[in-house]
């Protein structure tokens, strides 16, 4: 199990390969990667603020829950903060399990909790000003299924 909260970028392919190489006995590997959308060219940059200390604590707690709830061989979460531009990777989740249903469910669970329970806040910076990204009702609603 690995968690990294980092300012630096990361390489999806490199991380996916390293994660897959580390697991044994698990036939199913799922990855989710979030990428900065350019909003049709209107986005100049994205600033991600976080709450150092609580971020690691909250995500570790979410990962422990996922490991306990599904038969996971391993799990990985990488989440960036700081200034990002369009097409930068924002974050990544990876899960490995014997059966695909577990790997998919755990990855979706981790994503749903990261969206609404990990202390990150995104601000979109455009040519004509900047704006904090509003939380989506459906992200909060997504938690009720777990």
């Amino acid at each position: 199990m690995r968690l990294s909260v980092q300012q630096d970028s990361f390489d999806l392919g490199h991380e996916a390969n390293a994660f897959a190489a580390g697991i044994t006995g698990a036939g199913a590997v799922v990855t989710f990667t979030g990428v900065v959308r350019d909003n049709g060219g209107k986005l100049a940059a994205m600033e991600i603020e976080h709450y150092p200390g609580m971020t690691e604590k909250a995500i570790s707690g979410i990962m422990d829950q996922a490991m306990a709830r599904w038969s996971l061989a391993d799990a990985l979460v990488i989440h960036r903060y700081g200034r990002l531009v369009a097409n930068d990777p924002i974050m990544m989740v990876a899960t490995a399990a014997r059966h695909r249903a577990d790997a998919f469910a755990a990855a979706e669970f981790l994503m749903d909790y990261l969206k609404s329970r990990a202390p990150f806040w995104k601000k979109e910076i455009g040519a004509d000003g900047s704006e904090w990204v509003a939380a989506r009702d459906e992200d909060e609603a997504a938690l009720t299924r777990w």
Partner: protein
Amino acid sequence: MIDVMYFAWVRERIGLPRERIETDAATVADLIDELKAREPRYEMAFADLKSLRVALDQELSSFDAPLAGVREVAFFPPMTGG
């Protein structure tokens, strides 16, 4: 003495990321009332509690939670990670 932290637009409205506050507030709600009484920027930041979240010692909590023994209070909007 308690550490109070602000994130995202709460931080921007109040104009600082953290401060140490001398308070006898019993609950988070009491602390908010104290802060709102200070200056308009606090009143503005805490105008709509439905759009705010609070963490006590880095755990999500509620506005009616007691502050006894708490060292760090953080106010912020709903998270938008992922």
